[in-house]
C-alpha cells in the first residue's frame, strides 16, 4: 500500500511537470505573456528566500539573515555562487558555535 501511494504521488507530481513540455513548444505568445513567464523565476526566488531564511536556526532569525547578508556581499563581487554558499554556511556555523 505504501508503494502504491508513492506511485500515486509520482504520477500527480510528474503530470503537471511534463504537460507544458507538450504545449509550450509550438505556441507563440503575446509579449505580455512572455514578460509574465520571464518574471516567474524572480517571483519564485523572492518567495523562496523570505521568510524561509529567518527559520534556518529556530528562534534566532538574525543568524539566517546574517548568513544571507554575507551571501549577498560575496555575490556582489560576481564570483561563482558556490563561494556565496560556502561563506553563508561558515557564517551560520560560527554564529551558532
Amino acid at each position, binding site marked *: *500500500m*505504501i*508503494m*502504491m*501511494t*508513492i*506511485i*500515486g*504521488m*509520482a504520477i*500527480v*507530481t510528474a503530470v*503537471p*511537470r*511534463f*504537460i*507544458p*513540455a*507538450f504545449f*509550450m*513548444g*509550438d505556441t507563440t*505568445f503575446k509579449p505580455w505573456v*512572455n514578460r509574465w*513567464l*520571464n518574471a*516567474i*523565476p*524572480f517571483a*519564485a*526566488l*523572492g518567495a*523562496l*528566500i523570505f521568510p*524561509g*531564511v529567518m527559520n*534556518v*536556526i529556530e528562534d534566532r532569525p538574525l543568524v*539566517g539573515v546574517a*548568513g*544571507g547578508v554575507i*551571501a*549577498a556581499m*560575496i*555575490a*556582489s563581487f*560576481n564570483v*561563482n*555562487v*558556490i*563561494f*556565496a*554558499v560556502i561563506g*553563508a*554556511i*561558515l*557564517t*551560520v*556555523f560560527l554564529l*551558532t558555535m
Partner: protein
Amino acid sequence: MEQVHSTNQITKHAVIKNGMLAGFPIFLGYLPIAIAYGVLAKESGLTTFETTMMSVLVFAGAAQLMAAGMFAAGTMFIEIVIATFVLNFRHFIMSMSFMNTTKEFPLKWRFPLSLGITDETFAVSSLHKEEANKMYGPYFYTSLIVVAYCGWVFGSLAGALLGDVLPRALSTSMGIALYAMFIGLLVPSIKKNGE
C-alpha cells in the same frame, strides 16, 4: 533564435562541466534536507527501499517530508496523493516558464528535462537561460538536474541507512545553503538590471 556557432569551439564536455558546476550548490543544499527526510521516513515506518524509491520517483522535497509525516499519522492513500498534487502544482507554472525558454529543444530533451523541475533546479536553470541558445544547451540543463537529483536520492538513502550522519552543527549550518544560493543568483541579476 539561432544557435551560436562561435569560433572558439564550445565542447560538449565543457558544457556538461558547467552544468554540473551550476548544479553543485543545489547538491550541497539538498544533502541535509534529503538526510532529514530519510531519517523521518524511516521513523514513519517506511523501509529503506520505499524511502529511497520515493525520492527516485517523486523528487519533490516539501511533498516528501509532508508524506512521511502523513504516513506516520496513518493517513489514507488518497489524501496523501491529493495533498501531493496540490503542493506540487506550482511546478506546472515553473514548467511553463522553463519550457518557454527552452522551446527550441526537441521534445525528446524537453520531456525528461520537465520531469526534473523543482523549485531549486528551476530557479538556477532560469538564471542561466542564455545557455538555451548556445551549442549543446540541453546538456547544460541535464547535467545541472542530474547533479541535484543525485544529491537528493543519495542523501535520502544515506539518511535511511545511516540516520543523522552529518554532525548537528554542520547540518544546521548547511540549512542556509539553498537560501545563500538563491541570494547569490539574485544579486548579480539585480546588479545587471541596475546598470
